[in-house]
């Protein structure tokens, strides 16, 4: 499944995800008008059509949707900017912009390679040695034992303490939150989503939100929200009250 080819049918936009991304980046589409939850639901529906959990697509999707969420949050919640990132806003904007640009460039390059491969697929050449080529052993030049010591010292070198803030975005698995929410609903009939995820990082919150949508899709819980941006209340569904422990969503098993 290719995430950027995901077909979307939203109020503000109709077409592939890729195009939406391009329009947002070109500022021809205001993110504040785009229903990001609709994108998540479209993705989950596509995911559910598959027999197996496509982890690669999930990872790619999470990165893109997290970037969009962040952009949208910046546009919507001016006063919460300081909370949105530990970095100062200048740095955060810089970092985010650089990351989005770099990722887009990598995608562009990958697209070029894909097309090239398709065009060059009919060039066959020999991969191994020629069948009747002379076989000559090329002896190794004398080596310096210090090279061994150097290689080993490098292996014994302590890795530096790297701040994770500019390392790879790390997404906790959705399955973690599936289990956590199931556990919560076993103990309590309802909970408040915001309260439960308040302590988490934004990326964890994104995963938690995906888990929430997945559980609702599977009918394991119900979601209520009084108004846009009002707290999301999560509760057990009736069927879940009846047969709480019998269900094992295939999705969880596969994603474990």
């Amino acid at each position, binding site marked *: 499944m*290719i995430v950027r080819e995901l077909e979307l049918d939203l109020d503000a936009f109709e077409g592939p995800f890729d195009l939406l991304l391009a329009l947002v*980046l070109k*500022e021809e589409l205001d993110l504040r008008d785009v229903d990001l939850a609709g994108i998540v639901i479209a993705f989950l529906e596509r995911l559910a059509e598959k027999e197996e959990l496509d982890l*690669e697509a999930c*990872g*790619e999707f*999470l*990165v893109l949707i997290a*970037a969009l969420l962040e*952009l949208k949050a*910046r*546009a919507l919640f*001016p006063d919460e*900017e300081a909370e949105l990132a530990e970095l100062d806003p200048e740095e955060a*904007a*810089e970092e985010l*912009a*650089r*990351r*989005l*640009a*770099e*990722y*887009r*460039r*990598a*995608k*562009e*390059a*990958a697209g*070029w*390679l*894909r097309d*090239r*491969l398709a065009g*060059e*697929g*009919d*060039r*066959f*050449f*020999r*991969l*191994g*040695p*020629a069948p*009747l*080529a*002379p076989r000559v052993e090329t002896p190794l030049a004398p080596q310096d034992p210090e090279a061994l010591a150097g290689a080993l010292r*490098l*292996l014994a*070198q*302590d*890795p*530096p303490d*790297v701040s994770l803030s500019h*390392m*790879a*975005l790390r*997404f906790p698995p959705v399955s973690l939150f599936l289990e956590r929410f199931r556990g919560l609903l076993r103990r309590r009939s309802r909970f408040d989503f915001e309260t439960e995820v308040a302590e988490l990082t934004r990326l964890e919150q994104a995963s938690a939100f995906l888990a929430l949508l997945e559980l609702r899709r599977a009918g394991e819980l119900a979601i209520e929200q009084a108004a846009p941006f009002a707290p999301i209340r999560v509760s057990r569904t009736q069927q879940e009250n009846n047969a709480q422990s019998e269900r094992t969503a295939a999705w969880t098993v596969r994603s474990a």
Partner: protein
Amino acid sequence: MDRPLRLIPADPLDQLARTLEALLVVASAPLSIEELAAAAGDDPERVEDALRLVGERFAEERSGIVLEHVAGGWAFRASREEAAACARLFERPAQRNLSQAALETLAIVAYVGPCSRPDIARIRGVAADSAVANLLERGLIAEAGRDTAAGGAIRYRTTPLFERVFGLESLSELPRLGDVGEDAAGIRDRLHAVAEKRSA
């Protein structure tokens, strides 16, 4: 042939072309002009002239064998017309089913130059471990020492096989992409504009 006025030693180019054919048919990777010249015991300029003769003999639509300039050297391959027959007998060289993740990883290594898994993950935003393992196994990337600055993470570069599979004469043939700097500056300006609107 009679060439009474020729002052250059009488070794005809034809003979050199034959030598090159022999070298190319036994080599297991593309050979550079210098490698061909050293093995043939002739000078690079004459090798270039003789390669032209070989190229005329082994051209698409003229022969089942085709001479191509690829991965910084010269090599024989099957003509494109015979791809269907070749596909029945041989694996397509290392290129089947490259996933989107693998292609992106390959693109990053090709464009950025030697880089480590953390470098790749930083750009892609997701771990690159399985894509890197897959590309290593296919021989499209190879280890290129360790990054002494970043705690000795292994760095990777693309291989000559990568250039060969993608039909590139060299990495410089990769197209220039939109400038990251420009892109990033544009996006940053937009973010700032949003911030200003809010504080206004």
